[in-house]
């Protein structure tokens, strides 16, 4: 019964995540365009793209491709149910372990769906994405652990609540080293340069998306949009103290995303092993210092 009551909220959050994520994508594209001294697409371009993708015919290489694509977006949307939006989640829980692991099912679905397409460039891209995940998960987790040590809770809602009462309480100030580490990891999480080896059109012809057409591509876009929503919201909740109203929250998300897009615009792409090494070297060591200083010992 409780679950039934939850359904409208779940539906709302699903569309909120997709909608805001697509808006973020559109804003990001326009921001990049401005950095590149051009007009750029309208901010609602991402919506048009997705709708167009769904209006096209598409191909499939078997049921695994369908299953994987559905699983991927479902996983990410389910994650969105656990990420606090303005100190609230529809499930009433913001467990960080759930968020970290539930996101993985999205990646697993994507990985499975695209490698079922039978194109070697897709698993090439996925292998890169997973290898990169190896690189950024650890720094991210270390910083989160530092917060758990301090707040005594692994619930994102509690962590966000602990930062209420003005920017001086934000964990951005409490964990400055950790913030830098997570920002580096975030760049890799959303797959922007210098860590966009997963897509890398010039190398592996857009990698995982290589065989996606029509609605499959549309779902992949939605996946990316929800991923953006979830990951920016994660940063906002972890470091920027969540927000009191939706507009502020989304504003902070935009800020986080555009910072990343600005780096994206002026960076080239690492080779994959360089990327992982870079992540471990910088993000990893910073996060390690953060965790060590917070915990005060092993």
């Amino acid at each position, binding site marked *: 019964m409780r679950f039934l009551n939850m359904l409208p909220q779940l539906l709302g959050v699903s569309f909120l995540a997709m909608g805001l994520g697509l808006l973020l994508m559109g804003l990001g594209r326009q921001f*990049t365009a401005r*950095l*590149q*001294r*051009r007009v750029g697409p309208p901010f609602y371009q991402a919506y048009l793209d997705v709708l167009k993708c769904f209006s096209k015919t598409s191909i499939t290489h078997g049921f695994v491709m369908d299953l994987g694509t559905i699983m991927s977006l479902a996983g990410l949307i389910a994650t969105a149910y656990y990420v606090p939006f303005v100190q609230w989640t529809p499930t009433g829980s913001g467990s960080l372990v759930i968020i970290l692991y539930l996101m993985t099912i999205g990646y697993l679905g994507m990985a499975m769906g695209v490698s079922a397409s039978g194109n*070697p*460039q897709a698993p*090439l891209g996925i*292998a890169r994405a997973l290898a990169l995940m190896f690189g950024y998960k650890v720094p991210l987790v270390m910083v989160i652990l530092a917060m758990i040590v301090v707040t005594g809770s692994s619930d994102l809602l509690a962590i966000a609540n602990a930062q209420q009462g003005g920017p001086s309480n934000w964990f951005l100030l409490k964990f400055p080293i950790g913030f830098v580490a997570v920002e580096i990891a975030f760049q890799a999480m959303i797959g922007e*340069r*210098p860590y*966009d*080896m997963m897509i*890398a*059109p*010039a*190398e*592996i*012809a*857009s990698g995982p998306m290589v065989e996606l057409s029509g609605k499959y591509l549309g779902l992949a876009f939605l996946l990316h949009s929800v991923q953006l929503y979830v990951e920016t919201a994660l940063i906002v909740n972890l470091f920027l103290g969540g927000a009191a109203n939706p507009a502020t929250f989304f504003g902070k998300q935009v800020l986080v995303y555009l910072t990343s897009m600005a780096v994206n*615009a*002026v*960076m*080239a*792409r*690492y*080779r*994959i092993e*360089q990327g992982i090494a870079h992540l471990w070297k910088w993000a990893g060591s910073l996060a390690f210092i953060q965790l060590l200083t917070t915990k005060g010992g092993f």
Partner: protein
Amino acid sequence: MYLPDGYTTLEKLREAGEYADYDLFFGPNHPGMHGNFGYVLTMIGTEVVRVRPNAGQLHRGFEKAMENKAWAANVSLIPRVCVPDPDPNEVAYCQAVEKLLGCEVPIRGRWMRSITLELSRLGSLYMGMGGLAGALGHYSTMYLMMIERDLILDRFEALTGARVYHIYNVPGGVRNDAPEGWFDSVSRLLDHLEAQMPEYDRLLYENHVVWDRLQGMAPITAEEAMASGVTGPALRATGVKADIRVDAPYAAYPEIQVDIPTSGGGDALARAVQVRLDFAESVRILRRLLARIPDGPVHADLGNLAKLKVPAGDAYSKVESSKGEFGYYVVSDGGEKPYRVSVRGPSLPAGLYLCHKHLPGMKIDDVAAWMASFAICPPDIDR
């Protein structure tokens, strides 16, 4: 080259029925491919173990087509041999014809040739740097550099009426003199380009990611480069001071100071830096050219160009393009059409030969950047 334990060659691996290797089609329809060209890469893991070039997709039968067109009419065909850098083709061909005719190009005509050559070189170098940036995923640099190239194309448009295929050089000189104020506009353009360049340096050449990517990639020694026919920036990047503008000067270069900057090192980074040095030198040359433009006609009187007849004989003429040596070997039997025109493009040694040496053992990550670092331009391989 990476092979599983116990196997020394790919053949042995396949005979054993191991399915370790797979093929990737790098081009023609691949975002990393510059132009319509292909490498079929045999891969193990993420490493290339064998490459089969797949050329000919841009083949248009130029050399045959030129045999069926009048001497001067061929000028309209020739710029299409190398699309990003068309003018060296025109000049090389016209020089070969002039050599057969034994005619002298007036000094202002030679000056105009040099100016267009250098402008075309600048445009092509922008394309090259942008292409390299694009291969490394640095799209902003590419996007911005295309603006600058477009400004150069605007000057070309003012001079010749065309943006890409200028068809400006004709046997005996150039087609027309520069319009009023054109030299000033070029001069202003150079100011602009030089003012913009520090920004691109910051974006591309001072970018650590770019350095990490290019450093040590596909190194080549001076001897190897010379023996394998590599010319232009790729050769100079190995430290060889070789430039046709100096070694066999043509157009206005005998009268103009041309330095040969070399980066040295021979790897992809050296080649990338060499392009930047070439760019700076080209701007300096242009300034020197613009500083003293001689007066006079731009075209020698050869009568009706459409009915031009060229004495029998053969001549080879070469020009330093932005990618290296462009050579035209022209044979005449005394008729109204060339008997045979044979084209030497700068991309073939790297594109069809060095690929066998460099790509095996290379990661898939680097193939596009390798192509860009050698400025491989498929149209002049295929012709």
